[in-house]
């Protein structure tokens, strides 16, 4: 069961650093407090999405699994 989000970024098949670039480019489409999901099978995303949150002052909420088994990383826009 996937968490409901305000913006879902389908980054399946994209290699690092493209999922993080996509996140950096689009997270501001949602208002502060809203959730963004990055769905990415690239292995570096597991480390780089939380690192991006830390560098950008956003909140890393956690990881879950999309219906097709691909990791889904949740980020809450803080600022």
């Amino acid at each position: 069961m996937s968490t409901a989000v305000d913006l879902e970024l389908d980054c399946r098949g994209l290699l690092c650093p493209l999922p993080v670039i996509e996140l950096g480019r689009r997270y501001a489409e949602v208002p502060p407090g809203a959730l963004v999901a990055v769905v990415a099978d690239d292995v570096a995303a597991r480390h780089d999405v939380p690192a991006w949150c830390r560098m950008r002052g956003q909140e890393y909420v956690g990881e879950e699994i999309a219906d097709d088994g691909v990791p889904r990383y949740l980020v809450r826009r803080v600022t």
Partner: protein
Amino acid sequence: MTKAAARSGVPLPRYFDTASAESLHPAARETLLAALDQGYADPRRLHGPARSARLLLDNARAVVAECLEVRPDEVSFTSSGTDAVHRGLLGLVAARPGRGDRVVRTAVEHSAVVHAAAWRRPEGHLEVPVDRTGRVAPEDVVAAAGSPEVGVVAVQSANHEVGTLQPVTEVASALRAASYDVPLLVDACASMGRLPLPDGWSAAAGSAHKWGGPAGVGVLLVRKGVRWVTPFPGDDRVDERVSGFENVPAALAAAAALQAVVAERDAVNARQAALVDRVRAGVAAVPDVEVVGDPIDRLPHLVTFSCLYVDGEALVDGLARRGFSVASGSACTSSSLEPSRVLAAMGALTHGNVRLSLTRDATEDDVDAFLAALPEVVAGIRADAGL
């Protein structure tokens, strides 16, 4: 050549990857050439040329022992640093059949430690997390060492990717204080020669090409009185801890390089540390670049940083085209296509990663040329990505 290169517009080659391999120290070159002629014979035989080879091998051992402040009978020459780590770790485990064979290791150990542990048993090892600088807490290591079936604890002297020094001596004291009779393997490959060996190891490993000796020479140290048995097939040679015909000329050249590096290290380390400080300040000024690793308790010659939104392979290529040879821990630059375990364990950004490690004669001019080129290379890659 330098002027001609400058005139032709070809960038000067500037080598920043001594943590992978440093060029042969001038002191080792002469020794190597002389030893190739005098040290070819089998040091086990009893004739004249053999005695000459044996003398050179014993001399190499004595010099390395003096440089590292250990006993000559604690020193073995292996075929590489990796081989020294494997023999050190697995030999300590093999000597204690009643203890179990789980390995307690920091989350940032070199892959040689990880592979040796997995070769002994596929799973069940205990990884001790590190903080944001890449350092373990001694109490966390001790807590893990108290688990059942632990055969050995592995803590590196310094991290090979980010330069952070580990609290080896504190770990050793804490293990003693807890009365855990567990041996400690110290992978000192990243620091040997550059910094004194930390105290408290049962066995330790080093790698000659990282201090300016030839490749193909590792150093295995086993502390006098510590139980160790060979984990691999034995051999009937000079030194029971290793197998195969000794590379006498290379061992002697490695010893000569080590002697020179130890003699010069106060001056070289101070110069390199100042240059690394300059790099740290310079790259931190580039937008969205994060320097990783401890800013103070670190190897003097090494600095690592990650650039947000930048592809690591493109970064290494872009820098190489401008004459800069650097390493990277990013997934796209690794043979396994996995991001660096070290960067991941530290919570650092794994993409856009660069490791700079300075030569013994690196200058301010080298570093400034790099700092001048980096922002353009980074901006170019980001622009290509549409940022």
